[in-house]
């Protein structure tokens, strides 16, 4: 199955600046929410270690550092790819986020594509600490494929 979550919008900035702020200032703009809980603890602060092979990490209030994923492609100003794991993922489960920055007139179109949600981990993993709805949200991609069979709304973009 090849379905995925794709969201895009335009920002009033050059691709260079958009890439820079996206990576260097993620700790300032990221909004912790249930869907993006990486660990069962209180959300911490996100940061990128610049360059390929660097990490995207969450630093918790206790000082502990959780590795969300390694940076797989670091191509400013156009493309960024990194791995994405949450603490409850099964050992063999890994997802990938690709962020593209494309010029759109004087602005930049930023597209986030989150792929790799096909496998559903075992129930005991999902039941440990996390409420069911969070577990299911993380498998939105697989559900999306299922829902397409029912001709329900699939995919949403905000265009501003």
């Amino acid at each position, binding site marked *: *199955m090849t379905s995925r*979550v794709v*969201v*895009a*919008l335009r*920002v*009033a*900035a050059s691709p260079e*600046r*958009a890439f820079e*702020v*996206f990576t260097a*200032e993620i700790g*300032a*703009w*990221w*909004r912790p*929410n249930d*869907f*993006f809980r990486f660990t069962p603890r209180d959300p911490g602060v996100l940061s990128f270690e610049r360059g390929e092979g660097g990490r995207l990490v969450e630093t918790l209030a206790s000082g502990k550092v959780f590795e969300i994923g390694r940076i797989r492609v670091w191509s400013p100003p156009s493309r960024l790819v990194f791995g994405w794991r949450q603490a409850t993922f099964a050992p063999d489960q890994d997802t990938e986020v690709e962020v593209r920055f494309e010029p759109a007139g004087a602005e930049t179109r*930023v597209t*986030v594509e*989150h792929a790799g949600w096909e*496998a*559903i981990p*075992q*129930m005991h993993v*999902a039941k440990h600490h996390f409420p*069911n*709805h969070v*577990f*299911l*949200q*993380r498998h*939105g*991609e697989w*559900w*999306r*494929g*299922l*829902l*397409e*069979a*029912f001709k*329900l*709304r699939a*995919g*949403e973009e*905000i265009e*501003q």
Partner: protein
Amino acid sequence: MTSLDRTLAALADPRRRAVVDVLRRGPRAAGDLARELGVSPSLMSRQLKALREGGLVEDAHPAFDTRLRIYALSPAPMAELRRWLEAAEQGWSEQLAAFKVHLERAP
């Protein structure tokens, strides 16, 4: 167990997810499903039972043959799942919107 737990339990097995994937293409008789997936009729029967109990599939007899059971995906749990899916997209939409506000506010 809640109905959601049952739905999830039914889907925890990758072989049952494969059955659901085939049914996405349209309703099938149990025998056709077994052939398409290369499993024995008895195993298919057990998997369909689990999926039925999970509320994911329903069966019906076609008018011309009451012995035949045709299995199809059940729309009931899908409406519930749709809401979670929307939350998934909402999650990234909110992050990008927050990114935009931050980016355009700074000089």
